[in-house]
């Protein structure tokens, strides 16, 4: 990486963002390779952000065809049947993304996600998975974790006016400046896998943990138990989802009020993404991926939630491994080394 400089063209194009994260980070971005599965509105926003930021390449995978839902929140797809017929979501998004930044290589990979071998993921620095069942997410996450190189793994889902991002950076070392302008110190964070993070016993989590965490797990369980595609719901499913919630709460020995019915109803009825939330979640995910590639900035560990109803963008640190203390002290416990540098 050393000795290689940004070209004049790159410096001119990326001027404003180099002023935010520096030329070094920009060089790392331009050498990074990103894999993205599931081209819905939120992921389209995310792809736009990283293509503009100037990553090296983006590989898209999604063999589904255009539906009204896809058209509703994905601005990468032109609503013209002559253009979109016969093409997959990934192909259509690829065509649009290419135009955003000629310096980024955008391509489509056609395959069955679950059949991809471990070595396939070795080519990438970042893997982002969306709109697929939790079992698939666990499978891909495990493949990434087994590689000798560290691949940053993310999942993202947006339902109604709520969104969830999961982050697994495995063992992640970076320089942090914290909030003050003091000397930078080296931090190491230990992340949980998707499986560990989504199977934490509810009773051990704080009462103030984002309700969305629990609600998303209920929704996932429902989809899995009923063999549904992600988001394939209707208002008729509400009673069954609420019934499942009661069972889960009982099994976890927590009160039913742990997961508000109103929230679940919103997620079931409004399974379509709400564009402003796509922009927000896609923006945060873009930022997180840029942080992980550049090694600059404090990354999210390990969930991010946004809900229009309270307007908060909240971070939760959830794992099934260590008992959860309060968030501040658990954070410091995760810092294994803290070397103060000049």
């Amino acid at each position, binding site marked *: 990486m050393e000795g290689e400089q940004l070209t004049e063209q790159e410096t001119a194009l990326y001027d404003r963002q180099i002023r935010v994260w520096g030329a070094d980070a920009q060089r790392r971005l331009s050498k990074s390779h990103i894999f993205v599965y599931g081209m819905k509105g939120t992921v389209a926003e995310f792809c736009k*952000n990283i293509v503009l*930021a100037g990553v090296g390449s983006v590989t898209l995978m999604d063999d589904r065809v255009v539906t009204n839902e896809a058209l509703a929140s994905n*601005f990468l797809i032109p609503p013209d049947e002559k253009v979109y017929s016969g093409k997959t979501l990934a192909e259509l998004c690829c065509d649009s993304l290419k135009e955003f930044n000629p310096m980024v290589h955008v391509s489509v990979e056609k395959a069955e996600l679950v059949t991809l071998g471990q070595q396939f993921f070795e080519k990438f620095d970042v893997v982002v998975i969306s709109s697929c069942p939790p079992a698939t997410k666990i499978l891909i996450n495990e493949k990434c974790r087994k590689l000798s190189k560290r691949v940053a793994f993310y999942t993202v889902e947006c339902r109604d006016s709520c969104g969830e991002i999961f982050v697994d950076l495995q063992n992640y070392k970076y320089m942090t400046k914290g*909030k003050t302008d003091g000397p930078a110190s080296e931090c190491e964070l230990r992340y949980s896998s998707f499986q560990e993070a989504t199977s934490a016993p509810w009773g051990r989590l704080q009462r103030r943990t984002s309700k969305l965490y629990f609600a998303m797990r209920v929704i996932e369980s429902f989809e899995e138990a009923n063999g549904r595609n992600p988001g394939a719901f209707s208002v008729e499913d509400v009673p069954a989802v609420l019934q499942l919630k009661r069972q889960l709460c009982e099994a976890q020995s927590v009160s039913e009020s742990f997961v508000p019915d109103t929230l679940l109803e919103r997620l079931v009825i409004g399974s379509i993404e709400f564009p402003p939330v796509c*922009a*927000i979640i896609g923006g945060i995910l873009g930022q997180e991926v840029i942080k992980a590639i550049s090694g600059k900035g404090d990354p999210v560990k390990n969930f991010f939630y946004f809900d229009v109803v*309270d307007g908060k963008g909240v*971070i939760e640190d959830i794992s099934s491994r260590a008992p959860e203390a309060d968030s501040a002290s658990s954070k410091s416990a995760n810092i294994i080394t803290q070397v103060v540098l000049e």
Partner: protein
Amino acid sequence: MASLQQSPAIKGAKVLMVGAGGIGCELLKTLALSGFEDIHIIDMDTIEVSNLNRQFLFRQKHVGQSKAKVARDAVLRFRPHISITSHHANVKDSSFNVDFFKQFNVVLNGLDNLDARRHVNRLCLAAEVPLVESGTTGFLGQVSVHVKGRTDCYECNPKPSPKTYPVCTITSTPSKFVHCIVWAKELLFAKLFGDKNQDNDLNVRSNDSTGSSEQTEDVFERKADESVEHYGRRIYDHVFGYNIEQALSNEETWKNRNKPRPIYSSDVISAELMQQNGSSDKAGSADDPLSVSAMASLGLKNPQDLWSLMDNSRVFFEALKLFFGKREKEIGSLGFDKDDQLAVEFVTAAANIRAASFGIPLHSLFEAKGIAGNIVHAVATTNAIVAGLIVIEAIKVLQKDFDSYRMSYCLEHVTQKMLIMPVQPFEPNKSCCVCSETPLTLEINTNHSKLRDFVEKIVKAKLSMTSPLIMHGSSLLYEVGDDLDEAMIANYSANLEKVLSSLPSPVTSGTMLTVEDLLQEFTCNINIKHREEFDEENEPDGMVLLGWTQVPTKPKDDDDKPHTGNGVSTSKASETDPAVAQADAGVVKINVEAIDASGKKRKGPDSKDISLDPPSNVADEATAANHKKVQQIDEDEEDLVVLDQWDIDTNKKQKLR
């Protein structure tokens, strides 16, 4: 809420977007996706290459075209059936009057300067249209809702103004690189290439003890038969050598400071090297003056490299030579422009040579350009997030969901577990001179200050009025407009040159002036209070406006690292710089003391105080005394952060719900 896309409140709404830049592109896309069908956009700018990294509706082939128009066309490609009307114009144009604003249900701002934000705020107040205001810089962002009578207006709380520096810090005792930039840009560059009749402090201070200013004036004139090389050396030796020697002779100044070192061209660059300095054929074509480059002709490639004193000196001479060789016609009328490569090169080199003289670390052209051009740091992600938040608030406004209006911050560091933090909107500030009728007080020497000074320094610079009218009782002192007859114009121009106390209707201590902007439909009363003396360094305007909600711009010596950016200007030039300061990004920096990142210094779990810096993206420790207080009310299910009013006088706590 997804069904909202079909909601009549959204479908039937007519919205005005002001600004089609970083936030604007994201906003237009998100509005269109969210189901809005009637959108107007105003933007006077054209597309530049440095926009393309985040203004994703624009492509290389659009460079030079209207942002409003290209943004419209791009969005219509994925939402062909909605109505988007673009206005390639300045929002301050008189056609965008109160009646124009009245046709909209909500106005959404994605602007980059304070002046335009104030203008839109006043029009929204006058037209009684809700305003959603926004700003970003780097990873920080902010969105707020302003509804007349329900929340504060944009001007209820103080906004930081461009940073100014004492003249003597710039002319004699620079201690930071930014001081050298201000010197190079506002003084040296202006002296050599700008309007010769403009006041300029370049030689005033350093020559206090010697000679008359008339004699030194000649130094900067190129003599009739003088070669550019000779002229360049003479300027160089004068400003970096002779002037420093002169300054050193004043022992008093250097008692507690490091003495600067005079630098002469012969010490740095030999006569032979001077001769072979640069090959102008590589310097770029004279047809495109903005692309002429001393770096190119010297073979310097990377703008991020740190140049040696010798390199800086070579750039200095080469840039001067190219100005005279390729752009001679412009000399005498040039102003600094961050997109003028040669101007940036000259200012960088001159600032670095001065920095070397004063023992201040040198900076790369890339960094110097950012400081000199007040470049706002911008990334696509923050703009996208902020645009999403704007649309959410706009929908609440259209649904008249008053109780859920929120002001939202995008944070760089996690605060109370949040990266996006909503707070309750402020109440109107009862002493706000824009949305209430509280008069201001102006301390001024009524026997010395002319009406012109009042118009320039107060009415235009502070009150941001575009077409003002000044009245004393029923007598008109001044007015701007297209419909004035010649006698009136003559009368007003005569008034401008009169001191206040000798106006036809004399303005003296105790006078109440009424200043009105007809376009903004904004009226403001000003009590005049005569004051004999003003401090030249701290009150350079020679007048002080009291009751105006603006952060006092105490001249101060503290500085920001280049990456945090600066509003750079001398006190004289501050209001004329079109790029104004970073402050214009309109972002508040939140500093949280209650929770330490490592958890070490964390106060008890009940600690709810957060301090908030004044509304500026530039961390400004000097105004720490004016911190907002944030109180978080922790209730069972929901917590909401409530901010106190910034203004100390109205330091009242708001109750939640």
